[in-house]
């Protein structure tokens, strides 16, 4: 009888492959046939091993990773598409900055400051800031500006009730307009960033 099959030949026979010579030998050799049976049993025992459960829930990490990638991809996809919009907005911002510069050189007028503040409020509403997804940095800047505006509003309220001088009121309204202007600029920049 031919020498016994090698392990590689036995495995091939077990898997329904292998040469006809190997198959013939296994059919005739009780030792090799027993070995093929044993290999079948090992495979069956391996398949019967219990499943292993993960020790920790990794979904929060996966979810955070997926969301971060989606944000990055959204930025890349909108980046090119928003170039035209960004350019248009840059023009608007530039024109407004020039207008403000001109206004700054004129003597401050309480009524015009109040009107300007109201116009900025309208502009801010137009950007619908509450519906936007913000980066942590932008959100922090906006929160700081809104806090400072709230502080100025409180001071204005106090000043109007305590009969403060017109100069003090003009000063506070100037601060408010300046802060509002910065706040609108943050939103304009942000809108250009994400393609409106």
């Amino acid at each position, binding site marked *: 009888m031919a020498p016994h099959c090698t392990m590689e030949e036995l495995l091939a026979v077990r898997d329904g492959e292998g040469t006809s010579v190997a198959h013939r030998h296994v059919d005739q050799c009780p030792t090799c046939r027993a070995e093929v049976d044993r290999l079948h049993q090992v495979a069956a025992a*391996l398949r019967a091993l219990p499943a292993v459960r*993960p*020790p920790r829930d990794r*979904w929060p990490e996966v*979810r955070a990773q997926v969301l971060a990638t989606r944000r990055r991809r959204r930025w890349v996809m909108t980046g090119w598409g928003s170039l035209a919009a960004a350019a248009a907005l840059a023009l608007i911002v530039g024109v407004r900055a020039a207008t403000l510069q001109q206004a700054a050189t004129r003597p401050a007028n309480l009524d015009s400051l109040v009107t300007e503040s109201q116009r900025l409020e309208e502009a801010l509403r137009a950007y619908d800031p509450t519906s936007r997804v913000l980066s942590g940095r932008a959100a922090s800047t906006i929160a700081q500006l809104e806090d400072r505006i709230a502080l100025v509003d409180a001071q204005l309220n106090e000043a109007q009730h305590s009969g403060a001088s017109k100069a003090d009121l003009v000063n506070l309204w100037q601060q408010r307009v300046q802060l509002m202007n910065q706040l609108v600029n943050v939103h304009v920049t942000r809108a250009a960033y994400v393609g409106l």
Partner: protein
Amino acid sequence: MDALEQVYRAYEGTVYSLARRICRSAEDAEDVMQETFFEVCRSIGSFRGEGPGSLTAWIKRVTSSKALMRLRREKYRETDELVEDGDAVARRDPDVALTLDLEEALGRLSERSRAVVWLHDVEGYTHEDIADLMGMTVSFSKSQLARAHARLKSWLGKEQ
């Protein structure tokens, strides 16, 4: 994200189990699980499954690929079995060595041998599939399987 979480919940056991069989440590297997689900969430939109079980097969394929990629990154930490474990078994009474169970014997194989055994004998991958996944040849896969079974046989004894 709710639908993706459902996929995660349905397959976390399958993915972790497979990763754990290939990776050396539980930590590595957890990392592979995370990488797998990230890939699944990212690519599920382009998945075109046909027939029952195709999603499972695809997820398992991603898992195997990630686990084997990790092995490659670690340069296989080439040892055919843990030296300290081998010594410990050799010092035992021969009868005790014969009772080494399949789980323990499997754990003593090198990572790539264990990966070949598991992917071929349990997951039903062909040697061509394994060669493709591991970036090796078909004959490498066949010889790894044969070597692994020879070792398992010697560790398990005839009574397993």
